[in-house]
């Protein structure tokens, strides 16, 4: 392929990705009943956990972070991004059952662009969630010594985390094509969340969970967020958080593209 043709192809695929990202966001906004839980449920759990378990700060070994809500908000962001990923999967399954997906497949667009459009749309939702949750935490007394840079890094981690969750949701939706199965996956979002140090420091998790959390990439992402927000390497490594998040995005998007190819073949 000549350089000019290659440039034209890249530009075309870029436009396709942008168009599909915009559509993903428009559809999500139209179906507010699907999108709202990914904003409201994490906020509700944040409110309950911040008020209901803040006595944990008295436990020996609990890091001194000033405000408890500031500590747990990283877990809230993680929960939001996981739910946004699930909603992305539900939207894809809905497209498959509704026939829109077949129309997409018959268009002359790269298969990977279809996945990327949905993933980028979810990343935007992840950013909106992170901004909202961090603002609420600030309004309720959180203090982030990491400053604007720390907040920006945490939001970027949220975008990557939402992308990874969307990739996973897309992979399952494309593999199964079942809307009801996707809707029944809701409890498993909490499994992924609870096997990471989402709301408590890793050292204070139960021994079994502490062991499992070592192999869960979300552990490093949530700790990276805390490290960035509190400018403290003792709370988590930001670099490790980005490595885990980027690795998860690559892996889950590859799974989604593979599932897409399997669907096209069948």
């Amino acid at each position, binding site marked *: 392929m000549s350089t000019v043709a290659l440039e034209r192809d890249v530009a075309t695929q870029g436009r396709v990705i942008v168009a599909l990202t915009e559509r993903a966001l428009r559809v999500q906004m139209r179906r507010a*009943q699907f999108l709202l*839980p990914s904003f*409201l*449920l994490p906020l*509700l*759990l944040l*409110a*309950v*956990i*911040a*008020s*209901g*378990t*803040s*006595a*944990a700060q*008295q*436990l020996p070994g609990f890091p001194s972070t000033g405000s408890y809500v500031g500590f747990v908000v990283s877990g809230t962001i993680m929960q939001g991004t996981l739910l946004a990923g699930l909603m992305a999967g539900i939207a894809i399954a809905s497209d498959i059952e509704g026939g829109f997906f077949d129309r997409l497949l018959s268009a002359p667009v790269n298969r990977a662009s279809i996945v990327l459009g949905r993933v980028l749309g979810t990343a935007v939702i992840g950013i909106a969630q992170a901004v909202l949750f961090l603002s609420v935490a600030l309004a*309720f007394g959180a203090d982030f010594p990491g400053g604007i840079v720390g907040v920006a890094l945490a939001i970027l981690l949220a975008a990557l985390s939402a992308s990874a969750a969307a990739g996973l949701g897309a992979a399952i939706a494309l593999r199964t094509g079942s809307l009801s199965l996707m809707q*029944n996956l*809701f*409890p*498993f979002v*909490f*499994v992924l*969340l*609870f*096997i990471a140090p*989402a*709301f*408590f420091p890793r050292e*204070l*998790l*139960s021994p*079994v*969970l502490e062991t499992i959390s070592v192999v869960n990439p979300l552990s490093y992402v949530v700790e990276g967020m805390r490290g960035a927000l509190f400018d403290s390497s003792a709370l988590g490594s930001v670099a490790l958080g980005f490595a885990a998040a980027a690795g998860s995005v690559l892996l889950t998007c590859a799974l989604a593209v593979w599932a897409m190819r399997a669907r096209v073949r069948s």
Partner: protein
Amino acid sequence: MSTSGLAYTGGVGFALWRRSLLELARVRGGLLPTTLAPLIFLLGSLGQFGRLDQLVGFPTTSYIAWLVPLSCLQAAGFAGGATGANLARDIEAGWFDRLLSSPAPRPLLILGPVMAAVTRCLVPVTVILAAGLVLGPGLTGGLFGIAMLYLAAVSFSIVASLWGITLALRARSQQVGPLIQNGVFVAVFLSTAYTPLPFLKGWLAVAAPYNPVTYVLQMGRQATVSGIEPSWAHTWPGLLALAGMVALFGLLALRQLRRVDR
């Protein structure tokens, strides 16, 4: 009412209860979501917050003992709420209109799903209690404590069912399902879900004493929490709260049914 009238009413009520339960036989894994979600919450919360039992003044040395009644109530609430969602499906499918055109006494149209909720909730509550017992807490409250836990869970499933039926009759659409379950979620967690009243901070410390579920939880926790010994003092507030909620949501459901009937 005459004997034949009573027999007829009982027969209709039994048939509606049986129909609600038949769905469990038809839909494989129908009880799975109402069992699995609270179980995941139980295990997840235990893993995350398990060290809270080390706080000075915490009423038990086993955090799972604190959580098991919460998860039982959550499961009972979800099972109750599911009957409301099923009623919404019956309304959309037109089945409920056929019931309304029958001469069946109107309260029975509500009583059938409520009785089904009571029966359905027994499975997840027992599974969660068994899982909790395997993982640690003894039944410190003895038989009386177990009876109070089951009474709290069963009665709460009635409350959740009446709440679900009210919303289903009002919305007449299956889309009301998440709202029903979110209502149960909010009611259960805006209470002493994770820690006792003295450990709550901020707005939850203000809200939880006014949430009737706080007292229902206290009633159920007599079964497993050593610091809440079985006593009338730990029982009557829960009974009162349940009676109030059943009366309130029962009236709302009946009022909504009358509107639909008109």
